[in-house]
């Protein structure tokens, strides 16, 4: 993106003075980073008072809107599980038509939130179509690795060997048998105006990406990792630590795709590991802190499974380095 204006940088001082558009009082689990994620996203909006939020079914949707309350101080709509980007398509296309007819001066900004259930599985069709039609919206997929809202069922985002209630751990199977979808690459392959991965821990990086995604003309997608202590089984205050380690082990590399140049660029928090690979931590350090991977370590250490997880992580990491000419 060749920008003539200097890039927006989030400053805590400014944020502290901004109005909260995602307010306190929502009922996410204690320590759930999805609330921080939503709040950061709302603080990064270029036109906060002129933004519409369309939301797919998920933890964030349920917990932020429990009757008779809502945490949203913007026009907000829950469509359904599979169709938030389609709903956004209609909102945007209708506004454009009204503007053409001279009935509107301005088209509001459009932000779509979904979880990994919607973003990786049931909603792929709607998102794919909306990106193809080049609707102007930012689609944020916050990924907590499973259907946590219905009580921890595996999704296309669940990593291999993770326990969920539908990828049980026992003698027959060591948790989920399949790797997770490279969903950001799937959406980047649609050649949107902008696509990125982010982590709730790297707040500056995430907020800058939200700003870019909102400002760019055309569809934008951000896949942000947001740990879940109910499923991942770590002490509830360590959510940010989990998100940080996922980046430091290169399990969840941070990168951007710019539609204008069609380039993949490693973001600063991950670029350091490409430049100094010795700094990259073994993925085991991240796995062993999580109860959902306990069977890789206890009662007997499963070196074969840990090595397999490391191999898959390394392959993905090598691939994104290659795409960004850092490999």
């Amino acid at each position, binding site marked *: 993106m060749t920008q003539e204006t200097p890039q927006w940088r989030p400053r805590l001082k400014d944020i502290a003075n901004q109005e909260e558009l995602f307010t306190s009082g929502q009922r996410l689990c204690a320590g759930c980073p999805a609330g921080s994620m939503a709040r950061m996203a709302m603080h990064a909006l270029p036109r906060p008072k002129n933004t519409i939020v369309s939301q797919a079914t998920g933890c964030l949707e349920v917990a932020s809107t429990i009757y008779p309350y809502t945490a949203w101080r913007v026009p907000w709509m829950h469509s*359904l*599980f*599979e169709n938030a980007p389609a709903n956004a398509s209609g909102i945007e296309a209708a506004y454009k038509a009204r503007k053409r007819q001279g009935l509107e001066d301005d088209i509001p900004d459009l932000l779509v939130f979904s979880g990994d259930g919607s973003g990786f599985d049931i909603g792929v069709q709607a998102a794919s179509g909306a990106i193809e039609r080049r609707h102007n919206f930012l689609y944020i997929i916050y990924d907590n690795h499973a259907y946590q809202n*219905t*009580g921890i069922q595996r999704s296309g985002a669940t990593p291999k060997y993770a326990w969920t*209630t*539908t990828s049980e751990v*026992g003698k027959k199977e060591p948790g989920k048998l399949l790797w997770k979808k490279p969903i950001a690459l799937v959406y980047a392959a649609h050649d949107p105006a902008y696509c990125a991965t982010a982590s709730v821990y790297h707040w500056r990086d995430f907020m800058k990406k939200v700003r870019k995604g909102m400002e760019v003309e055309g569809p934008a997608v951000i896949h942000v990792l947001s740990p879940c202590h109910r499923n991942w089984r770590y002490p509830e205050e360590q959510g940010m630590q989990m998100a940080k380690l996922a980046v430091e082990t290169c399990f969840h590399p941070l990168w951007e795709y710019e539609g204008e140049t069609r380039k993949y660029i490693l973001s600063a928090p991950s670029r350091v590991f490409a430049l100094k690979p010795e700094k990259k931590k073994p993925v085991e350090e991240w796995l062993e802190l999580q109860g959902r991977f306990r069977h890789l370590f206890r009662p007997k250490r499963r070196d074969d499974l840990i090595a397999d997880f490391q191999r898959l992580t390394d392959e993905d990491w090598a691939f994104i380095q290659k795409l960004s000419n850092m490999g």
Partner: protein
Amino acid sequence: MQKAVLTGEMFTQGDIAAAEGALAAGCRFFAGYPITPATEIAERMAYRLPRIGGRYIQMEDEIASCTAVLGASYSGVKAMTATSGPGVSLMNETIGLAAMTETPMVLVNVMRGGPSTGQPTEASQSDIMQAKWGSHGDYEIIALIPSSVQEMFDLTIKAFNLSEQFRVPAFVLADEIIGHMRERLVIPHEDEIEIVNRKKPTVPPEEYLPFKAEEDLVPPMATFGDGYHFYATGLTHDERGYPVMDDETQLALIPRLCDKIRKNSAKITEAKTLETEDAEILLVAYGGESRTAMRAVKDARNKGMKIGLFRPVSVWPFPKEQLKEAAANAQHVIVAELNYGQLVGEVERVIRNEVPVHLIPRVCGSPHTPDDLMKEIRRRIK
């Protein structure tokens, strides 16, 4: 290897009982997608199926779940999915395909409040008509309504048996009350469970026609890979399964798809009654609501009122003859259901203005109390 039939007693919830019923009926494939209040069925199947040599797969949505079940059925495996109303809304296209291709499959719908997302964690019986009319076109399905945890088990087996017998999708229409209620479940010995399997072709492959019905209007079903030529399509098709767009083919096919259920309804319908012999007021209730109604009947009888309860167990096809018999002496019929009036229409069709039919609807998650029903009974008995 674990046992498929866990003979013995259990204190468990309806959702688990449905899963165990399916396994006892021979179900070895489950494709599912999480949805409240049916997720426990998927969780149970995910836990149990790998241990008994079956397969659970989690799909990317309900469309895929239902269609994977259809595919599995063509592989000769008894297959099931479980969901709630919003999931059935997505599955309806495939349910029509299953009716058209005469595919045995079982769907458990643990009903919650609707429309749309509605009340995910609350009870409802508002998918009664969706089960019958969900997909487009003329077709028939089978739907059974359990009223206890034991019936979740028993009727899931029955749904499999009927589905196999008639090559038709069969619903277990449970409400959230029954799905999440915990009660005693008695699982009989494997040998005591009646199992019906689909008819297989008895003719050599060159003579087999996958949609040529026998006297019961049901065609024998080969499995993909058995060596029979099998062509299945959602288009109107002849006995070979090939698409034919003329009137004659549609006239042969569609009435048969409906009549194989309508004309065999005596073999399918089931209803239970309580104190209906001399009943002047007949209550009609089903599922979780029937539990309240049972109490209301007992209370009313203790007070000397002649009240009876009619509980349809099969809702599609509707047990018309059984209802007529139960309502023989009734002056009033009162339908209590957890919706804004669905099955009441079917009751009215059967009663035909002979006596007044009253509706006590409820659309707010919790069932009626026996007192609610007593109030209506008192108003009618005078």
